[in-house]
């Protein structure tokens, strides 16, 4: 790799109570690229994703060991403010979860609590910028005051993406963002992901191998809590080194 990676994970172990969910994960995530995490259900890819913005903190029984650094800063260090971290590492969830508020308020909420704008005009501009970036502006510009939950599933997911990018994070985590969407909405989101990587580093968990192949430049394959293999997407899909990877991408396990 030419550039230094933005996220480096070293020997990350995660336990849910006594059960080990991740075992010694070491992975580098390059900046302004899309990295996809693939693997069968229960392999720990979502757990790893949620370590990166410390969403696992919400689970009482969850314990994380090892090092995760974003831009050389240890995110599990005691002086790290989780709130500031999550402003830098946004997350898009499996099921679209807009706030039951207006479209405008959905996008404006993040910037508002982080104090990113000064004045109404500034905020209007940021909301428009975010919605344009998320490819939603043309569809909602006349109904910004309508509730976000009234949109279609695909639109809701793009609204959630707009809500994230309004905070201008460095990294966006996506946890199976298209699994609740139809193929057309999925295609739109995939196009959007490709567009967004110019400004953001994206890590996407997906169950669809085709999706991983289409949208990502890097791929990491997880299996039973282990990181089996990672590298350029092309390499992983065409000449995997490990037999398990081979079996998974050809549909023999998973």
């Amino acid at each position, binding site marked *: 790799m030419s550039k230094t990676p933005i996220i480096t994970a070293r020997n990350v172990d995660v336990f849910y109570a006594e059960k080990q969910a991740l075992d010694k994960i070491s992975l580098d995530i390059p900046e302004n690229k899309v990295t996809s995490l693939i693997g069968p259900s229960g392999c720990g890819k979502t757990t790893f994703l949620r370590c990166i913005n410390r*969403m696992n903190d919400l689970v009482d029984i969850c314990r994380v060991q090892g090092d995760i650094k974003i831009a050389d800063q240890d995110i599990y260090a005691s002086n790290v403010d989780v709130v500031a971290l999550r402003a830098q590492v946004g997350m898009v969830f499996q099921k679209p*979860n807009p*706030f039951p508020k207006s479209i405008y308020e959905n996008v404006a909420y*993040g910037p508002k609590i982080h104090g990113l704008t000064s004045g109404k005009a500034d905020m209007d501009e940021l909301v428009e910028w975010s919605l344009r970036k998320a490819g939603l502006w043309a569809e909602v510009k006349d109904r910004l005051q309508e509730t976000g939950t009234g949109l279609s599933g695909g639109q809701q997911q793009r609204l959630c993406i707009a809500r*994230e990018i309004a905070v201008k994070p460095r990294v966006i985590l996506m946890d199976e963002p298209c699994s609740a969407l139809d193929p057309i909405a999925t295609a739109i989101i995939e196009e959007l992901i490709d567009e967004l990587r110019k400004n953001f580093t994206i890590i996407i968990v997906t169950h669809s191998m085709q999706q991983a192949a289409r949208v990502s430049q890097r791929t990491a394959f997880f299996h039973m809590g282990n990181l089996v293999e990672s590298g350029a997407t092309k390499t992983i899909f065409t000449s995997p080194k490990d037999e398990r990877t081979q079996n998974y991408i050809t549909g023999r396990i998973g």
Partner: protein
Amino acid sequence: MTDLDTSFLQGQKHLAKRHRSESRFQWMGRMAIVVSLSFLVFMVGSIFWQGKSAVTTTEIALQINLSADVVDPNDIRGASFDRIIKATLCDTFPEATSRKEKKKLYGLLSSDAGYQLRDQILENPEMLGGTVTIWVNASDDVDIFNKGQIDRDVPQADRRLDDQQIGWIDQLSGNTAMRSVFNAKFFTNGDSREPELAGILSALVGSAMSLSICFVLSFPIGIMAAIYLEEFAPKKRWSDFIEININNLAAVPSIVFGLLGLSIFLSTFGLPRSSPLVGGMVLALMTLPTIIIASRASLRAVPPSIREAALGVGASPVQATFHHVAPLALPGMFTGAIVGMARALGDTAPLLMIGMVAFIVDVPQSILEPATALPVQIFLWADAPERAFLEKTSAAIIILLVFLVLMNIAAIILRKKYELRF
């Protein structure tokens, strides 16, 4: 092709049995509803039947001579109105001559009649100087006789009015000197030993004050406790312990809270006895667990995805809770609070313990003055020996039920209107 397998149709015997047991079960369910509904109809019906007569009261007209030698226009208050009333009665029924007969005669009118005469004169002093017709309250016995609740066929010794008194009453109603009017006093007076004067107002005001105190104390404390326990408290052993205790408190008989209030609020803190302040505090103790449990349930009903969404854009846990989760749970919290308050409105036992069972005539002016409450008033009247308090009791129950129904309707409206579905 010809030997088509029809064995799947042959379970008909079993099928019939299954249908029978299903219809049997449905009939049992319907019967249960019919029985419980009939109990309800019987209860509400009998209360309304008994209470409806409290809407009216009986008044008697007296032709009273108010010449200057009877009432001095310059010193109205100095006149002896009781004596005027009695003299007028004796003039109307000159056949009452003995002490005993006169006493029976005076018993036709409310003991308040003299004051009622005075108040009417003070209101319209121009009536002085001539003979005027004044309507005053009949006594409770005359009132219920007029409402048909004393049977004149019963032997004289067994009824509250004897033949002579009934004769006078007949004479009065024959002369149209007796009428039934709307019983405004029931809604504007406090309690009284005389049923015809007793009213519900002081109990209503006492209940309203107690409930306000109860709400002001229990709602904020209850929802903050619920929010902390549900959203912030680490799920450790001691939070389980707290949860078990809260659930237990919700089931503790209310009289125990009354005893607690007696020993802490009255004995230790020395707060004024019988006051709506203490009543409200005791009811708040009682309502608190209900509000906490309902609020926690409605917080739990907010989908976790909302919480994650807020945290995902970098909201702190407090911001996520107060910007997103709590507002969505608020209608449910209000519903729980109203249901708890409705229970508090109807509760008597804790108020008895802290002395709100006192005989309170005056409408309380502040939360520190002695007061009584609606259910306690019902208890007091139900306990009173006078037959005429029977209808008052039922009427007070009707008023209590009306408020309970209103509160429950408010809870339903809140829930229907503001509840969000996901």
